[in-house]
């Protein structure tokens, strides 16, 4: 191109030199003004994000914090106070218990369904697919309110059972969505060989498929775990004292009548929530790709 020919040789030389210094496949990140714009955007986003997180942490350890850069003194009393006041031992128990049961039940229901959808074609398959897609597409409040009404009518309102049931609604389709590609990857001839050697369906699942599917099962288990611990809308509609999960307890403390609880109490609960999530996330990222946390997508270029 004409432009390339008019560019001074020295510049071209330097560019080549830089290109040679880079590892193959690696791209330069410090280049044009547009790169600066992009990095500016990323930096602003991270300032917001880090600011939000650090503020909560500092606030939760601060004695009093008004119009100063840092609180006047440090204390851990907010943690013990919120632990007692909001019955956090029980709240944590409910949160983790609900999450664990939701994970197990959604796997038990979802994996066989995912298997059929991955392997078979049968009349009405599109309809079944749609049935499992709807709970993910419809906004949670839109189906959550009729669902919660049904729960109250059956006398399940404010019970842990109801919290588990509503959490299953998005969890099962999610397991099916994440498991299907994992099952599709397994060569069907392995199953055929097992069948010919006389394995029944139960044996096929426990002896052949389950060991091969361990990565997929772990991935969807941690994903459901993260989503269940974080799910607010549906849980909020059916839970009450004794069946609140941590997010809901925080929300209730923030909106309690009379202007809400002391800000530091809420912050200390927030830190507890973040810690729980971090631990799950650290475990999760050993098994799943970050993009999997948002959708079922294949990420060809990563690692």
């Amino acid at each position, binding site marked *: 191109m004409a432009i390339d020919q008019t560019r001074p040789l020295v510049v071209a030389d330097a560019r080549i030199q830089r290109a040679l210094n880079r590892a193959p496949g690696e791209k330069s990140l410090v280049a044009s003004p547009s790169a600066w714009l992009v990095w500016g955007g990323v930096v602003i986003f991270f300032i917001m994000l880090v600011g939000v997180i650090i503020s909560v942490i500092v606030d939760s350890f601060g004695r009093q914090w008004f119009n100063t850069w840092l609180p006047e003194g440090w204390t851990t009393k907010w943690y013990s106070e919120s632990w007692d006041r909001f019955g956090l031992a029980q709240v944590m128990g409910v949160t983790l218990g609900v999450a664990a049961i939701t994970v197990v039940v959604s796997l038990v229901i979802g994996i066989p369904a995912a298997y059929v959808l991955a392997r078979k074609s049968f009349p009405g398959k599109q309809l079944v697919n749609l049935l499992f897609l709807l709970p993910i597409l419809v906004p949670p409040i839109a189906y959550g*309110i*009729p669902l919660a009404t049904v729960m109250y009518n059956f006398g399940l309102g404010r019970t842990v059972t109801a919290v588990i049931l509503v959490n299953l609604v998005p969890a099962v389709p999610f397991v099916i969505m994440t498991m299907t590609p994992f099952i599709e990857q397994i060569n069907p001839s392995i199953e055929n060989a097992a069948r010919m050697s006389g394995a029944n369906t139960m044996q096929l699942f426990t002896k052949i498929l389950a060991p091969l599917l361990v990565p997929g099962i772990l991935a969807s288990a941690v994903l459901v775990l993260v989503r269940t611990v974080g799910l607010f809308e549906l849980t909020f509609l059916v839970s009450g004292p004794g069946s609140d999960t941590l997010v809901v307890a925080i929300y209730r403390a923030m909106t309690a009548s009379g202007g809400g609880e002391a800000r530091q109490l809420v912050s200390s609960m927030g830190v507890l929530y973040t810690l729980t999530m971090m631990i799950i996330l650290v475990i999760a990222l050993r098994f799943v790709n970050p993009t999997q946390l948002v959708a079922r997508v294949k990420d060809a270029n990563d690692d």
Partner: protein
Amino acid sequence: MGLSHRLAERGIDRTLWLLLPGILFALVLFIYPFVYGMGLTIQPSARIADQWGNGIFANYIAFFNDPFIFDSVWITLKLAIPVALFNVIISVPIAFKLRGKFRGKRTLMTLLVLPITLGTVLTAQGMLIFLGRQGWLNKTLLEMGLIDQPIQFVMNYWGVAISLVISGFPFAFLLISSYLSGIDPSLEAAARTMGAGWGKRLTRITLPLLAPGLATTFILTFVLAFSVFPSARLVGDAMGSTRVMSLMAFRAFGEQNDYSMASTIALMMGLVEFVVVLLVLALRGTLYRGSTGGKG
């Protein structure tokens, strides 16, 4: 040939029983409540019947005629559509710059996942402190002399918008990155060989291929922003500029115990969302649909 054999040829055999728990589950916990909720909407409560007549459609009449309820449709759309557009548009150049391999990519991706796990409730608490009148951001801007008095970031429209960007942008970015990685790089390389500059490559090759993926990302981000509920209450102006549909639905459900009106608002919420999604899908249908990546 036996019946079972003929059925098996069409794909119907005993393995289909494995679907049964899943289907039962969806029927009992999703379809039944939904149909039940639709039934509720035509049994208006005494409160609504008094005000809007005794007909079975009193809830719907109330929904469309009571400005306090109906305005929430526009309030929700005015919040969700700009935020979803912003998240998609801002993600595209960033995803472009960060595609391919470079050191620290996985760390960056991991950091971007953080806000998804933080959730809207915790983000709201952090925003109240960090962006509040006495928060670090306002203090810094004051010290630098950029502003004379603290800016009101929270408890208004912008508070909710910022919160939706914090939770929605990483989502949009990760999706667009993965769509972008699905586009065959050799297409761009070919265009480059034939002498196309970066602008031409962008507008003639990459963007057209990416457009369907952008539409999908917009839909998913929109769905997230549309059902915003905690942040509209916690960092918004719940009685004014952020009185969104989900707040109205919850108000009817939890505060007035009017399950039939709550179901009506919930149903209309689903409907409004459906209309927007259909419009975007129709638009997407006019775009390129071929075999290379970037599709939703």
